[in-house]
């Protein structure tokens, strides 16, 4: 009854369904990175002087840094001078005012990805700030959000229209010199999303951004900044796919969240970028810095992620719990398969009193995938009555994969209660046998067991995403057992 090698191979050979390339003329900067390129990016985007200085400052810090080598991943060194740091669709110049003005080819791309913008507008009530290769081209439901006072726009627009907000919060959670990739992003970030929820406002809809990497050899450097003022609430969805390419593409995004007093931010991600082929050729390098700060009392930040794509994932959505009674949550499902490598986890930094954090991490390894959980729970001296619960479970499918756990726990306050648990096992033959005896096919049984394994995380996802995530796992596991 063992999972046979053939089945695993079938799983591995599963094609990447979102693999296609849209040919759109790109306005692309020549490869290479120096201060002139940064000036070019800044001037192309018509940015104020202070932002250019900020970028240059970050660039100078980046030059002094070395790429981190502590992660449990292996890859060839990246030639940062071979990457082009700016690429914008041609149609961008005039700026589309509605969907009709958007390049039809782009719309076609979204169709293929199953993101019918207009349908979504009506059916799901989701405002989509779609990012196509670094520059936002379509934003919907702007008026409805504006009515509530919510600002939701591309980062470049925010720089033009709300410079005071951007200047106040940009880099306040992830400082420019935070790490190698964050510094790089700060220097060259192209675009991204900006979201501001004013005091006391409950955002009337779930905000969603679809990211997509397109032109070959252009790294994508998204910058997302979400600020939730006192007593506000926002749920933000991020999902992404990328077309098939044989070239490794670097993605170094930075996401910053700021939650003021009594505010709540829920950030959900489904990541399904191109993972590379069976031999590990190609695929996205996803080196992302995500961090939220619970700045005010009783604030709450919740990260939920489903990571099934990318050749390499290096990502640690974190919470800095500064405000008293604030709460941080991290729910994660990470699946690695073929030659995929993931080193992902979270950091929970307890600073305020009575702060609480929960970490639920589910790792699934198949094929030759390497899946690592790396987490830090830090209770600083003043964080009285801090409470953390961490659970990391790994599921292994096939004899050549790996599952690793590297949890760091640092406690400087005796009133803290920190618990960490981790288990690793393979799919139980007993469970499979039981399902089979009830007339369920092995494939469905495995699907069921894996979905059950991930349930605690999926139930944290907004409904649309939960469906998508289950479907994603189902696709990835097709043929895993026969």
């Amino acid at each position, binding site marked *: 009854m063992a999972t046979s090698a053939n089945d695993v191979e079938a799983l591995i050979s599963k094609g990447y369904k979102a693999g296609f390339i849209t040919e759109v003329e790109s306005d692309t900067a020549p490869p290479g990175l120096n201060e002139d390129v940064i000036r070019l990016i800044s001037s192309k985007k018509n940015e104020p002087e202070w932002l250019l200085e900020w970028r240059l400052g970050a660039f100078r810090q980046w030059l002094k840094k070395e790429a981190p080598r502590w992660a449990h991943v292996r890859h060839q060194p990246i030639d940062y001078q071979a990457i082009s740091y700016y690429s914008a669709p041609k149609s961008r110049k005039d700026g589309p005012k509605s969907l009709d003005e958007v390049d039809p080819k782009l719309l076609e791309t979204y169709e293929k990805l199953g993101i019918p913008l207009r349908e979504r507008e009506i059916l799901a009530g989701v405002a989509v700030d779609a990012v196509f290769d670094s520059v936002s081209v379509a934003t919907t439901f702007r008026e409805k959000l504006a009515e509530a006072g919510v600002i939701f726009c591309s980062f470049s627009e925010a720089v033009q229209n709300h410079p005071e907000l951007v200047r106040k919060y940009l880099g306040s959670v992830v400082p420019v010199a935070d790490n190698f990739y964050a510094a790089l992003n700060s220097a060259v970030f192209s675009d991204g999303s900006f979201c501001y929820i004013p005091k006391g406002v409950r955002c009337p809809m779930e905000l969603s951004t679809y990211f997509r990497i397109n032109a070959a050899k252009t790294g994508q450097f998204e910058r997302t900044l979400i600020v939730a003022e006192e007593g506000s609430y926002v749920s933000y969805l991020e999902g992404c796919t990328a077309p098939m390419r044989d070239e490794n593409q670097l993605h170094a995004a930075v996401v910053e969240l700021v939650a003021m007093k009594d505010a709540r931010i829920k950030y959900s991600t489904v990541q399904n970028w191109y993972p590379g082929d069976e031999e590990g050729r190609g695929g996205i390098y996803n080196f992302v810095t995500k961090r939220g700060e619970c700045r005010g009392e009783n604030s709450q930040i919740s990260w939920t992620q489903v990571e099934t794509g990318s050749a390499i994932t290096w990502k640690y959505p974190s919470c800095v719990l500064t405000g008293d009674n604030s709460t941080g949550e991290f729910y994660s499902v990470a699946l690695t398969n073929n030659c995929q490598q993931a080193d992902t986890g979270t950091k929970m930094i307890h600073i305020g009193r009575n702060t609480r954090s929960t970490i639920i991490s589910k790792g699934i390894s198949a094929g030759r995938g390497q899946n690592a959980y790396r987490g830090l729970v830090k209770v600083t001296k003043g964080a009285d009555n801090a409470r953390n619960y961490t659970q990391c479970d790994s599921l292994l499918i096939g*004899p050549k994969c790996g*599952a*690793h*756990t590297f949890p*760091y726990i640092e*406690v400087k306050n*005796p009133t803290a209660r920190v618990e*960490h648990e981790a288990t690793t096992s393979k799919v139980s033959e007993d469970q499979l046998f039981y399902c089979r005896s009830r007339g369920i096919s092995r494939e469905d049984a495995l699907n069921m067991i894996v979905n059950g394994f991930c349930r605690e995380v999926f139930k944290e996802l907004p409904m649309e995403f939960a469906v998508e995530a289950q479907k994603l796992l189902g696709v990835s596991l097709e043929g895993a057992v026969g």
Partner: protein
Amino acid sequence: MSTAATANLLPEFERVSASLPGDARVAERRRAALARFAASGFPSQRDEAWRYTSTAGLARRKHSVAIDTPVNLARGRAALAAAGAWDGPQCVFVDGSHRPDLSNAVAAAGLRIRPFAAAVAEDGRIGERFAGWGGEELSPMISLNAAFAADGVVIDVADGAEHGEPLRLLFVMTADVRDRAVFPRVIVRAGQRSSLAVVEQYVGESAADGFTNTVTQIHAGEGARVTHYRLQDESPKAYHVGNLIVSQERASEVVSHSLSFGALLARQDIHIMLSGPESSVTLNGLYMAEGRQHVDHHTRIDHFEPTTRSEEYYKGILGGHGRGVFNGKVVVHQHAIKTDAQQSNKNLLLSNDAEVDTKPELEIYADDVKCAHGATVGQLDEDALFYLRSRGLDESAARALLTYAFAGDILGRLGIARLQKELAARIAGRLPGAAEFLEAV
């Protein structure tokens, strides 16, 4: 690159190298080991394995490798008396040198015990073995020991020989020489189906500020059973760095107990290599820190072969400004299917300034395995305290009782009754209010 911190150890080596035991080939190996240490120096906090433990104190010292200074026996005897009585066989070392006059290790059938210095002098191959087999890649501290190792003990157990009575190796540090550095080396080779229990105990005069850098190597042959105890109770001014390297053949069973109470800085590395199928290991540990003590345990278990088993139980009690560090790593290699690995680390913080850093790690490259680990950090349960108070215990006695009970399961696994009793008293001695209930224990 900054120059590696080696304190004054390189010139010390030149000064004493002629007095170190072994022939020219051993001397050559020592020199090579020293070169390896010199290249890396004392580990810095940039090294992941030393992230929470600073060796700055060691790198600043003016170490005195005083192997040519005569041992002050009177002081040694006094410190020895404080270590507790032992009626079984034992080897005693004062300031790093073996003292036959204080030892009573009688060789039994199938058991050969030799002082390290003598063993190396008469058989250069042991020297080769200790320098080549020692896994210097594991830590620069092992290279440092390989360069300077002057004494210690070599224990050979013949195939099938069973020795139920534990052998004590007592290392006494006096305050006779300031900043003394000693480098004991213990080699245990247990033949097929043999059994042996060894107790390594480290004590010192209260003013002794020495640096002990010790390496113990255990090789457990097929079906062998080896129990190793390490009781580190050096003076609160001492520096103690220990490495235990264990390699296990098929179906061997090793149990390691590590209890750490003393030293200003105590670091213990345990490397277990389960190199034979069906081999198993149990690691049992307790660490206590108070005042400004810093105690660090790093354990690594490599499951190389199928159907190997490991269990690990470590507990820490941290008071004062004490700091505890635990890093437990379990690696299951691709070949090692049907591995069962369990690990737990629990820490109790007793004061506002105590700190703990724990990192239980799993690295798994095989699918058919059962692995789990858990780690907790907390303080005494308020409800339990309240209950004891309601039964008439005062605050300090109630706290002491609960803290003592926390350590109870680790003590319970020791297996040697008198040791258990002695250590129970040692723990209770550090808990204000414990006298009240200890009578009854």
